[in-house]
């Protein structure tokens, strides 16, 4: 795209998505991505960024236009599906920082990709499956061109014409089946070499045996060749395989993106005083780093210089900012609120709090890997049964007539070894798990697609299976049950609110921001001065004013008896005013909890916040069981206790302190506002200010489980009818083709029924 094509207009003046499809990212400066730039040989540098919030054509134009407007940029391409922006530029013409700044100025959050994590963009395995699928589709359609005449006109058709049709079928089907069957052959071979069997063993066996049989039939000029069945079988199986792969790939990509987003950078101050951006994981104990206001602490450190306040809500669940001065220790993950600081690193990244949490997550996920998917259970049952049925058919037809004759029973047709093999192969073909292979992925694709439209991202298919089994819901308080940010609770008259907000505009403190939010747009105060941990002072309409803690703004005012977060505002000689703030419940919290309880689920609140705050929130939301003051490891321990009592827990949380518990739970969810680690650790991410998506997700998961069970039951019924017919030798190529297509169609249509399900919210 040419830069001149991107003319500026009114839409570009807006921050963020011009169509309003997503909220603009908060105005922070971009991170320094220097550590992640890849240098190519020909003097061109390349950088890959993960851009959040791009939704429409306007976003593409805005972001790519902003990139191309930078000097030296050669090419910029935003992939809207994956959110990845690739920029290349002539080395030395611009600083990498200018790129992230430009994206941030346009109103989008951009994170640099760690090249090690971000590589392998093209999904090779998916492409291999698609190629095989295309070949199988081509073959099954074209072989039908020869099969249908044989089925319909066999009586009128001469033997030589039929054989010619069979040969044409063979020319198309044999190479196609050998190519399209490779995903199955490889997997079957790998399983056999390890002395195991899987679903691919009977599939491969059926394909190879049927091809061989059909070639023999063709060469000897006989009636029954199953080339069409082989191709259709592979086609239907590959459809199921591809759907399943796409679901897993989506989960993997989501996990990889979140991992890459943790590739944080830090500004290290070298001994010569030069500040340079480095990857956080290259920091060593004793390094000096500088931390801008609004940035997250990269590793556990101690403050060398400066005074500020930290937002530790993500770490501990506490809503109130924590003041910090020289000598205080700050933990990785806390956000610096007011002033720039100089820090000394006290622990290497591997032993920082965040890394320890990451290890707890790993342990939790190992436990989850023991979960056996319903499809795998079905296969474990299926393989031995089918193999022994086919073997029994072969042996029965080979030796059956003689054995029966010895007991004086005649009448069983002598069909010889050839006929016996033919019937055994028919059993293998007709039981081949097309319907079984589609039964689970088709349902899960429809279910995740349906939830995606409602703002719920399900990261894997087995997450839905686990979610359908839960009987207990454990919710975090801060940021999950509540919105996670303070909200003005005192009723003030409009004039007072306006003046107080003028001063609040000069501060980044969360309480100030809550005040500004309540007041709406307006002018800031004059000559403001911020005192970290105390408050902010300035002039409004020429009169001195102070906004902050009681000791700062109104030292003479009496202490209030409740312990809510508060701000005091003093304006000239007027009496100081107290404003209290509460962390509001999500608007539908109470209704959702009721809905969960109606579904027979036990609901608990598990929080790291103070007892009083948790009790109050739990009461307001209608939850009777709650635990307060828990540390991350205690949250995990609590879940372990529940698990030991035989409960299957669905954990919902958003903070760093929830991440380990999210990974340890049977199923888990986090809101889109959660920290990346928590999103990475949970199965489901839901967006928006409401909790209703949780109910939707549970309902959909349960419905999906029902569809899956129906599909598997249908497959079993189908086999129960088809196997005797095949074993007795009544199956012709036409019957095999019809049965295969019919059963696959049935399970797909049954899966699609989920689409029309009514959602709880509507």
């Amino acid at each position, binding site marked *: 795209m040419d830069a001149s094509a991107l003319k500026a207009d009114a839409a570009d003046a807006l921050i963020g998505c011009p169509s309003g499809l997503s909220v603009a990212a908060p105005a922070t400066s971009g991170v320094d991505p220097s550590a992640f730039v890849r240098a190519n040989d020909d003097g061109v540098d390349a950088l890959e960024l993960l851009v959040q919030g791009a939704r429409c054509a306007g976003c593409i*134009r805005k972001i790519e236009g902003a990139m191309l407007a930078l000097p030296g940029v050669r090419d910029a391409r935003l992939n809207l599906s994956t959110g990845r922006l690739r920029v290349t530029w002539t080395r030395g013409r611009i600083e990498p920082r200018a790129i992230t700044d430009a994206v941030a100025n346009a109103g989008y959050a951009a994170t640099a990709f760690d090249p090690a994590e971000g590589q392998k963009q093209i999904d090779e395995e998916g*492409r291999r499956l698609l*190629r095989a699928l295309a070949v199988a589709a081509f073959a099954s*359609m*074209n072989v039908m061109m020869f099969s249908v005449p044989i089925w319909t006109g066999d009586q009128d058709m001469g033997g030589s014409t039929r054989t010619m049709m069979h040969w044409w079928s063979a020319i198309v089907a044999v190479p196609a089946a050998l190519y399209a069957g490779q995903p199955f052959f490889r997997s079957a071979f790998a399983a056999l070499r390890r002395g195991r069997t899987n679903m691919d063993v009977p599939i491969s066996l059926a394909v190879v045996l049927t091809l061989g049989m059909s070639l023999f039939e063709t060469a000897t000029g006989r009636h029954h060749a199953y080339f069409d069945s082989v191709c259709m079988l592979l086609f239907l199986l590959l459809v199921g395989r591809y759907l399943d792969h796409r679901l897993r790939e989506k989960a993997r990509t989501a996990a990889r993106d979140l991992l890459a987003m943790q590739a944080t950078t830090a500004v290290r101050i070298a001994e010569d005083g030069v500040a340079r951006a480095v990857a956080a994981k290259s920091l060593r104990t004793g390094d000096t780093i500088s931390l801008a206001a609004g940035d997250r602490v990269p590793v556990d450190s101690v403050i060398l210089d400066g005074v500020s306040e930290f937002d530790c809500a993500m770490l501990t669940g506490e809503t109130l900012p924590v003041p910090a001065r020289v000598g205080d220790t700050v933990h990785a993950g806390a956000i610096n609120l007011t002033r720039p600081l100089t820090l000394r690193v006290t622990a290497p990244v591997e032993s920082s709090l965040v890394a320890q949490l990451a290890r707890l997550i790993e342990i939790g996920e190992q436990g989850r890997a023991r979960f056996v998917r319903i499809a795998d259970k079905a296969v474990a049952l299926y393989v031995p049964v089918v193999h022994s049925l086919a073997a029994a058919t072969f042996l029965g037809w080979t030796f059956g007539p003689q054995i029966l004759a010895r007991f004086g029973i005649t009448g069983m047709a002598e069909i010889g070894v050839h006929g016996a093999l033919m019937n055994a192969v028919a059993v293998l073909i007709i039981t081949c798990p097309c319907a079984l292979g589609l039964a689970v992925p088709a349902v899960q694709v429809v279910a995740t697609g349906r939830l995606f439209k409602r703002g719920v991202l399900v990261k894997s298919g087995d997450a839905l299976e686990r979610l359908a089994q839960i009987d207990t819901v454990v919710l975090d308080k801060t940021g999950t049950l509540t919105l996670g940010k303070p909200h003005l609770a005192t009723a003030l008259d409009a004039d007072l609110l306006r003046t107080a907000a003028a001063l609040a505009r000069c501060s980044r403190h969360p309480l100030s921001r809550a005040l500004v939010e309540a007041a709406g747009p307006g002018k800031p105060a004059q000559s403001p001065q911020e005192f970290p941990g105390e408050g902010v002072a300035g002039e409004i309409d020429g009169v001195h004013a102070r906004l902050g803690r009681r000791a700062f703004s109104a030292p003479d005012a009496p202490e209030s008896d409740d312990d809510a977060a508060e701000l005091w505002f003093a304006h000239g000689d007027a009496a100081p005013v107290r404003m209290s703030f509460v962390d509001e419940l999500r608007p539908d919290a109470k209704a959702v909890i009721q809905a969960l309880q109606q579904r027979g689920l036990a609901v608990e609140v598990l929080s790291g916040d103070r007892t009083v705050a948790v009790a109050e929130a739990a009461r307001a939301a209608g939850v009777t069981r709650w635990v307060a003051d828990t540390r991350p490891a205690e949250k995990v321990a609590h879940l372990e206790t529940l698990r030991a009592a035989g409960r299957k827990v669905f954990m919902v949380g958003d903070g760093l302190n929830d991440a380990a518990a999210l990974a340890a739970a049977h199923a888990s969810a986090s809101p889109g506002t959660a920290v990346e680690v928590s999103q990475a650790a949970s199965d489901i991410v839901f967006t928006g200010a409401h909790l209703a998506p949780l109910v939707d997700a549970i309902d959909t998961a349960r419905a999906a489980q029902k569809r899956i069970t129906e599909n598997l039951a249908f497959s079993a019924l189908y086999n129960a009818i088809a196997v005797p017919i095949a074993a007795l030798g009544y199956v012709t190529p036409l019957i095999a083709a019809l049965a295969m297509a019919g059963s696959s169609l049935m399970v797909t249509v049954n899966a699609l029924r989920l689409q029309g399900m009514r959602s709880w919210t509507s």
Partner: protein
Amino acid sequence: MDIIAYLIPAALSLGAMGLAAFLWSLRANQYEDLEGAAHRILLDDDDLPPPRA
């Protein structure tokens, strides 16, 4: 019946052409950004100076 000696290869090669087209599009990264492609059609690239007649 001689006609099928022409028609069968003709039908097969038509099918093979479709298959080849699909494989080409897959290799040419045509499916890498389905959502973006749907939106890019709305971008005005035609504010470029018109070619001189």
